[in-house]
């Protein structure tokens, strides 16, 4: 009975803590496993804790870093492209559009609700050798021979751009909709040109949306597995496909753990840099808190 | 007797002493106002009475019952919040019915009571509206109805009019007084606005910045006979004149003011500290001073000075007059006359008069 009363006092702790335990148990403990698996000999580790650097050494090769580098460049390219297209579009809907806003927004987001594999698959018919794009270019006389677009790195980037675009537009739309338009008027009133106003007022004040969108696109693009597998034709390895290869194909989870650790560290580092570079101005940060 | 009694209440906030050993008795059925500057801890006292804050030391009695450790939902005390705290996901009816539904009252009964009270606060037409669709004054009334419908022994009002504009505030004040008379509930009204407090209260308490109660009394007592210079300054405006007391044998007591001269004062017997030679402050309300360009008769005190500023404020005109010791006195003159009888202008030499009973001597 006494125990019951004691527990009753802790009821809210009992209720609150599972989420945290879940996160620690299934996110941080596994990450620790990956880390330890890359530095210890036995895998899975239990009794033998021989420190070893062979696994990490096996990863630190030009081939691995070429793959990480290429995945990174690709992820950055996609995120940048999404930003360049997404920002004006989000700006248009959030600021310029008055009537039918929800209607158009609804159709903007609709593809996002479907399985992304379906979205990627739809591109087969556009990109393939007899596909829509080639036919279009041929009929315009821009090309003589159909291009091999499908199964090229370009196809991978294009389709990932397509699938990730909503992840950029949504956070941008979020900040732009809350953006106080009077600030633009005030800036114009004070004599700034509209381009100066954009770079001095609009852009800094919407930086948090840009950063969130950029990270929401870049991070998953870096580790993407399915789209390169479908659109890339297996001709090139990406971080995602190599990790999956180590764990599911080539029976080398130890090196796989090391590679996952290394590429995870790389992306974390990049994420930190980006959140620094794209930090919102100081005053806004305070407000946000 | 269902009044509230606070005994030796002490409260710390983040390790800082906010309220120290506070005692206060609020009688039943009174409209009681708790007046004090912002941040003096008056809201904290209210929240302790409501049960939202626990008490670090001391006891709270409701009637004879010790309710210090009764949780908020167990106290027959209801609150009208500063921002009303109306539930935005419910309509007016549901908001008002909330407390009754918690008590598991029958639906018929609830409907009857809610409609009756909404009629009383003149909100019958808004029964099905959501909170966002109401004006500030209407929201205020919903909050009142929601609290009163539970027939609390005590109703706490935490600056309930702060969010309203001036006209509405004055109207609501009168409505509040009506309501209190109708329901005979003890109202405890917290505010930093002395005009509001003077208007509504049967009795009021003034708190200073240190969370201490300076004076308790009726509004008239407090205004006319402030117990301290803090009270005098906080309630209404006043001129504070510093000097020392001198009581010549068998003569009128006077206050000696440097470079000005003697001011005739009354010395009530209970003010034992007021001995010959002690420093004191004289509180003189601006409206108690007669201002005139011509000499007048029949006043105990008479000084002359030069008008430095004139502010016309509709009902009255406010003058600032510089006396010969460079002290400035504030003077209010009622604008009774419709025609300028004697126009006072800048830099005019004027006479100032007041009766000795109209000034209150206070401890320095």
């Amino acid at each position, binding site marked *: 009975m006494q125990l019951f009363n004691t527990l009753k006092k802790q009821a*809210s702790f009992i209720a609150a*803590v599972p989420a945290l335990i879940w996160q620690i148990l299934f996110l941080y403990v596994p990450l620790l*496993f990956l880390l330890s698996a890359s530095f210890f000999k036995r895998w899975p580790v239990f009794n033998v804790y021989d420190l070893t650097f062979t696994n990490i050494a096996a990863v630190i090769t030009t081939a691995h870093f070429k793959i990480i580098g290429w995945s990174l460049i690709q992820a950055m390219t996609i995120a940048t492209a999404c930003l360049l297209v997404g920002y004006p579009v989000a700006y248009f809907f959030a600021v310029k559009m008055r009537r039918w806003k929800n209607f158009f927004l609804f159709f903007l987001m*609709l593809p996002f609700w479907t399985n992304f*594999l379906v979205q990627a698959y739809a591109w087969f018919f556009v990109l393939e050798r007899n596909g829509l794009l080639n036919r279009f270019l041929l009929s315009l006389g821009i090309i003589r021979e159909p291009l091999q677009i499908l199964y090229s790195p370009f196809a991978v980037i294009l389709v990932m751009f397509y699938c990730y675009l909503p992840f950029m537009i949504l956070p941008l739309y979020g900040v732009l909709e809350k953006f106080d338009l009077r600030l633009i008027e005030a800036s114009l009133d004070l004599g700034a040109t509209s381009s100066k106003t954009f770079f001095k007022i609009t852009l800094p004040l919407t930086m948090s949306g840009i950063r969130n969108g950029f990270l929401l696109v870049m*991070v998953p693009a870096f580790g993407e597995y399915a789209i390169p597998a479908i659109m890339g034709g297996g001709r090139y390895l990406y971080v995602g496909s190599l990790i999956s290869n180590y764990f599911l194909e080539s029976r080398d989870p130890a090196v796989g753990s090391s590679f996952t650790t290394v590429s995870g560290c790389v992306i974390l580092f990049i994420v930190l840099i980006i959140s620094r570079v794209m930090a919102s101005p100081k005053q806004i940060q305070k407000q946000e808190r | 007797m269902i009044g509230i009694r606070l005994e030796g209440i002490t409260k710390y906030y983040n390790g800082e002493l906010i309220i120290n050993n506070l005692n206060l008795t609020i009688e039943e059925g009174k409209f009681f106002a708790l007046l004090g500057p912002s941040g003096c801890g008056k809201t904290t006292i209210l929240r302790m009475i*409501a049960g939202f804050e626990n008490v670090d030391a001391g006891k709270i009695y409701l009637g004879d019952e010790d309710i210090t450790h009764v949780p908020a*939902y167990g106290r027959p005390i209801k609150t009208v919040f500063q921002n009303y705290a109306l*539930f935005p996901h419910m309509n007016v009816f549901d908001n008002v019915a909330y407390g009754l539904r918690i008590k598991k009252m029958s639906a018929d009964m609830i409907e009857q009571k809610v409609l009756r009270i909404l009629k009383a606060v003149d909100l019958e037409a808004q029964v099905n509206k959501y909170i966002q669709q109401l004006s500030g004054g209407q929201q205020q009334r919903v909050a009142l109805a929601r*609290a009163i419908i539970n027939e609390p022994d005590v109703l706490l009002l935490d600056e309930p009019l702060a969010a309203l504009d001036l006209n509405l505030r004055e109207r609501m004040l009168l409505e509040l007084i009506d309501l209190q008379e109708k329901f005979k509930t003890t109202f405890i009204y917290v505010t930093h606005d002395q005009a509001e407090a003077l208007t509504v209260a049967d009795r009021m308490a003034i708190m200073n910045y240190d969370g201490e109660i300076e004076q308790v009394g009726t509004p008239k007592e407090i205004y006319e006979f402030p117990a301290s210079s803090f009270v005098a300054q906080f309630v209404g405006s006043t001129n504070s004149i510093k000097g020392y007391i001198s009581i010549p044998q068998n003569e009128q007591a006077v206050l000696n003011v440097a470079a000005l001269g003697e001011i005739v004062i009354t010395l009530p017997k209970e003010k034992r500290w007021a001995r010959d030679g002690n420093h004191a402050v004289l509180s003189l309300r601006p409206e108690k001073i007669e201002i005139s360009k011509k000499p007048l008769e029949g006043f105990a005190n008479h000084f002359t000075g030069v008008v430095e500023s004139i502010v016309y404020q509709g009902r009255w005109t406010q003058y600032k007059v510089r006396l010969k010791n460079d002290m400035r006195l504030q003077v209010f003159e009622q604008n009774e006359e419709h025609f300028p009888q004697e126009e006072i202008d800048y830099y005019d030499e004027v006479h100032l008069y007041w009766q000795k009973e109209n000034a209150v001597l206070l401890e320095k």
Partner: protein
Amino acid sequence: MVKSLVSRVWLPVLASFTYLFLYLPIIVLIFLSFNASDFPFKWDGFTLKWYASLLHEPELFIALKNSLLVALTSVALSLVMGLLFVYCGWQYRLYRFMPAFLAAVALPEIVLAVGLLSFFSFFSVPLGLTTLIVGHTLLGLSFVIPIIRTQFLELDYSLTEASLDLGASEAQTFFKIILPLLSPALVAGGLLVFILSLDDFLISFFCSGPTSQTLSLYIFGMIRLGVSPTINALSTMLLAISSLLVIAFCSLNISNRGL
């Protein structure tokens, strides 16, 4: 002049091109799903036979059932745990641990998936729907908790006090005041987790067992087997279903706007 050129001409043009870009492949796909020919770009007349053949695909329905089970369970779990964490945790200042939930977003999903896989294999946890639910709930939590917390912080604490003041217990206050006021965040969060779970490929790919084929895995398997009209039909059907769901959801939202 420049400004009006940008905003009057360029932005609408760019926006329309975005729509074209978004919908072109989908429209082609829908069109081809009604093509009687085995091969795209050879129109053999209108047919529904690919749809009919889908209905005779028991695997599809098993995958769909599994996916829905996993998604709904993950939604429920992450909402309940997230809500309790935010609501009950603030007394214990558990929000200090909020950044702990960010890692799932700052790391590529494949890292989480591989980590989970090694975790499960270390403890010999049989792979199956349970392990999928674990992974999806993990992802869900890191999206749901910030959403709920934002809304929770916007809640006026005096509403809780008002409710307690009016005689409601803490539990009654939670169910009558807090829960309805948090419901927009709960609906939005739940919907997001639902989509994330249905959409998720990597965690399903690594953490599924023999009994837990999901929709994503099924589609991936089909696509790996090459282009086929059946996938076109399946894709069109999924598109239609999700559009209907979104429309239903939106109209529900609009009818609630009186709130």
